[in-house]
C-alpha cells in the first residue's frame, strides 16, 4: 500500500503542514515525521488545495475520438490539477441513457486519472423535445445528478419546467446553456455590439442569455427546484443571478476562465481560435464577471474545455467550430487573474474550483477539506512559478488553445487523485524515505 507524506505544503495558502496519505485517504495532518516505506514529497512553498472539480468539460468520446478521448481529456485534467470532471452529454451518441452514462463512467475509471462524471442530457438526443431518461440515469451506477443539453438551450419553457420538477426526488440539477435560439441562432458567433457590426459577423446579443436566465430562475422558484447557469458571460446575467439569490431561489452559476479574461476585440482578425459559445464579451462584462466571482454571486469556475480537431477550426469564422481548450490552463489563469491582484485568496480558489462545484454536482468524495478522513484528492500549486503557455505542449489531442504565448503566474505542481499522483511537474521532488 502506498503511503505518501506531503511535506510542508501551505494548506489553502495558510500555515505549512504535512499530509500523510494512505490507501487513498488523508490519515494525518500536522507536523509529521517520515516513517519507513513512506514516499516523501517536499512541498515547501506550495499551496495545497482540495483536488479541483470542473463542472463543465467536453471529452468528445464517444464520437469524436480524433479531437479528444476520455483518456486524453483525463490526462489534460490531471495536468490542470483536476481530480473530477463532469463530461457533457453532447457526444455521439448523446449521453441520454443509463447505459451511455455508465459507459463514460467506466471509461473514466479505466483511465484512472480523474473521476469522470457523466452529465446526462435533459432531452433525448439534445433535441429539446422530449425528456431523456433522467431517473434511470440517476439510478444507474453513474449516479447522474447534473443534467444538461449544453451546446443547446432547453428553450421550451414547459419542458424546462417539467425537467426541473422531475429531478427533485433525486436531488438533480439542470445546468442550462442559456441561449434563446430566436435571439441568437446557430450562426450567432460574435458578441452583438459595435464590433459585430463592423466585422459583419452574426451578433449574439447579451439579452439572448439574460432572458433565458431570468425565465429559468422564475421557473426554479415556481418549481422549488435547482437550476445551474452554465458559462455566465454577461453583466446582465450576473444581475439576474444576484437578484434571484437574494430572493432565496436555488440557483448557482459558473464562469469560464476565458470569459473572465478574453474580450470581444480579439475577434478583429477573424481567428476561429477565439470563437466560443457564448462569445467573448466586452471588457465591462469581463469586469462584472470577475467581481461576481469575487463576491460569490458566481459560485464556481468551470472550463467548458472544448477540444476540436484542427480542420474543424480552419473554416471561415461563421463555419468554424465553437469552443476552446481550458483544462490545463484554468488554475494558472485564475491564479494570475484573480489571486495575484487580490480578488480571491487560495481558500476562495478552493471554494470556487473544488468545494462548491463538488457540492453542486453532488460528489461526496470531492471538494472535501484537507483533514484526516477525507479522500486524498489534493492539488499542489506553485503560486510563484510563471508559465508561458505553449499550445503545442498539451495532453489534449487538440490544439485550439486561446492562451498560447501568454505568461501566467501560478501553476499546478502536483495532482493527487484518490491517493495516487496523477501529475507532477517535477518528479525529482519525490523520493522514497528509507
Amino acid at each position, binding site marked *: 500500500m502506498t503511503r505518501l507524506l506531503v511535506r510542508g505544503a501551505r494548506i489553502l495558502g495558510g500555515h505549512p503542514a504535512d499530509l500523510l496519505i494512505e490507501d487513498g485517504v488523508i490519515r494525518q495532518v500536522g507536523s509529521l515525521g517520515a516513517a519507513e516505506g513512506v514516499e516523501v514529497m517536499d512541498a515547501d512553498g506550495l499551496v495545497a488545495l482540495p483536488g479541483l472539480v470542473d463542472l463543465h468539460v467536453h471529452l468528445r468520446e464517444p464520437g469524436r475520438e480524433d479531437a479528444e478521448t476520455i483518456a486524453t481529456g483525463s490526462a489534460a485534467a490531471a495536468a490542470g490539477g483536476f481530480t473530477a470532471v463532469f463530461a457533457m452529454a453532447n457526444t455521439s451518441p448523446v449521453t441520454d441513457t443509463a447505459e451511455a452514462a455508465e459507459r463514460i463512467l467506466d471509461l473514466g475509471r479505466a483511465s484512472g486519472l480523474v473521476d469522470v462524471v457523466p452529465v446526462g442530457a435533459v432531452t433525448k438526443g439534445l433535441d429539446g423535445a422530449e425528456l431523456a431518461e433522467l431517473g434511470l440515469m440517476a439510478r444507474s451506477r453513474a449516479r447522474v445528478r447534473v443534467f444538461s443539453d449544453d451546446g443547446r438551450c432547453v428553450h421550451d419553457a414547459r419542458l424546462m419546467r417539467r425537467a426541473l420538477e422531475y429531478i427533485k426526488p433525486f436531488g438533480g440539477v439542470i445546468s442550462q446553456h442559456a441561449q434563446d435560439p430566436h435571439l441568437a441562432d446557430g450562426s450567432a458567433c460574435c458578441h*452583438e*455590439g*459595435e*464590433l*459585430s*457590426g*463592423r*466585422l*459583419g*459577423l452574426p*451578433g449574439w*446579443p447579451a439579452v439572448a442569455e439574460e432572458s433565458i436566465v431570468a425565465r429559468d430562475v422564475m421557473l426554479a422558484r415556481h418549481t422549488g427546484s435547482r437550476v445551474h447557469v452554465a458559462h455566465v458571460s454577461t453583466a446582465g446575467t450576473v444581475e439576474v443571478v444576484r437578484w434571484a439569490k437574494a430572493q432565496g431561489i436555488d440557483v448557482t452559476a459558473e464562469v469560464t476562465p476565458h470569459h473572465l479574461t478574453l474580450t470581444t476585440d480579439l475577434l478583429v*482578425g*477573424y*481567428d476561429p481560435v477565439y470563437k466560443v459559445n457564448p462569445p467573448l464579451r466586452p471588457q465591462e462584462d469581463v469586469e462584472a464577471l470577475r467581481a461576481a466571482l469575487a463576491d460569490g454571486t458566481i459560485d464556481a469556475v468551470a472550463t467548458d474545455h472544448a477540444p476540436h480537431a484542427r*480542420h*474543424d477550426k*480552419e*473554416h*471561415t*469564422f*461563421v*463555419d468554424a*467550430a465553437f469552443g476552446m481548450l481550458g483544462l490545463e490552463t484554468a488554475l494558472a489563469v485564475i491564479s494570475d487573474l484573480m489571486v495575484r491582484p487580490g480578488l480571491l485568496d487560495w481558500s476562495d480558489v478552493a471554494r470556487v474550483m473544488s468545494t462548491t462545484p463538488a457540492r453542486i454536482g453532488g460528489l461526496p468524495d470531492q471538494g472535501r477539506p484537507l483533514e484526516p478522513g477525507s479522500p486524498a484528492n489534493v492539488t499542489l500549486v506553485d503560486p510563484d512559478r510563471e508559465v508561458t503557455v505553449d499550445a503545442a505542449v498539451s495532453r489534449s489531442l487538440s490544439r485550439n488553445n486561446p492562451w498560447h504565448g501568454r505568461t501566467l503566474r501560478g501553476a499546478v505542481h502536483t495532482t493527487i487523485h484518490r491517493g495516487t499522483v496523477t501529475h507532477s511537474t517535477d518528479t525529482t521532488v519525490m523520493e522514497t524515505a528509507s
Partner: protein
Amino acid sequence: MTRHLLSSADLSRTEVLDILATAESMHDLQRREVKKVPTLRGRTVINFFFEDSTRTRSSFEIAGKWMSADTINLSAKGSSTSKGESLRDTAMTIDAMAVDALVIRHNASGACHQVAQWVRCSVINAGDGTHEHPTQALLDAYTLRSRLGDLDGKHVVIVGDLTHSRVFRSNVITLKTLGARVTVVAPPTLMPSGIACWSATDGFATSWDLDAVLDGEDPVDAVMMLRVQRERMSGGYFPTAREYTVGYGLTRDRLDRLVARNPDVLILHPGPMNRGLEIAAEAADSARSVVLDQVSAGVAVRMAVLYHLLAGNDDAPREPAELETSTTGASATAAPTQPEGVAR
C-alpha cells in the same frame, strides 16, 4: 499599400488617389478598339467565387484579361462546412499552384482575411459576407469623382439594408478617406448593431428618416441606394415591400425633390436593382443615375488594383509612368511594358 486588398481601411488617401488615377488611364484604354496591354503577361489571377456573382466576377475577369494576365475562374457552391474541405486546405491548394493573385468572393465575413494569413500570393477581397467590398467602394469613388470632382466636403447619403451590406461598410470608409461627409439611412432593424458608437468614432451621421435627410439643411450631392433582399421580410426586418418603399425607397417623388434642390445630384446603386422596391424605375433610368457608369468604372478600377498589387511586387517594380506609355501607345501590342523577369 500592402500585398493584399482586404479592407478599404487598408488604403490611405494617397493610395486611393493613386489607384483612381491609374484607373483613369485604364478607363481610356476601355474606349479603344484594341484593349489589351501586356502589363501582367505571365501573371496568373484566380477569381475564386464561393458565392454567385455576375458583375464583380466578369469585371475582374475582363480586367485581368485586358492586362494579359492568365485569369481562371473557380466557383464553389455554398459555404465550407465541417463535411467539406477546410478553407485553409482550399487556400493552400490554390497557393501551391504558384498563382500571383487570388480574387475572393465569399459568403462568410472575414474569409479573405483568413486566407491572406495562409497564402503567399496577393489576396483581393471581392466581397466577404456582410463585411466589406473594397473594390466596389473604389469604383463608386471613381464614379463620384468623375462627376463631382474632389469629394472633400461632398455629402453622400447611403440608404438601405446597412446590416447586411458590405458595400456600405467599404463605402463609408473610402468616402471618409476622401473627405466626403456621409449620412447613412435605414430603419432601426437594418442598422448594424453598435452603429451609434461606430458612427461617432468614424465620423458619419445616421438617420432613420430618409425625408428628413433629403430635405435637411445639408444639400445632398449623391444618393447611394442599397439592394434590399426580399427575404429580409421573412426575417422580420420590415413588414412589407410596400411599407419599405414608402419609408426608404427612392421614389419618383423623392427624386423630384432631390433634383429640385440640386440639379446635379447623382443616383448610385451597386446592383442588382430591385426596381419598385428600393428604387423606382424613374430614378434608376433618370439622367441623374450613374448606375451604368459604376459598372464601366468597375473594370478600370479592378485593372488599377491588379496593377498596383501585382506590378509593384516583383523584382522589377515599375512606375505608373511606364504604364502610361503602354496605355497611350497607338497599339497596345506595341507597348514596351513587358516587365523583366515575370516568370515566377
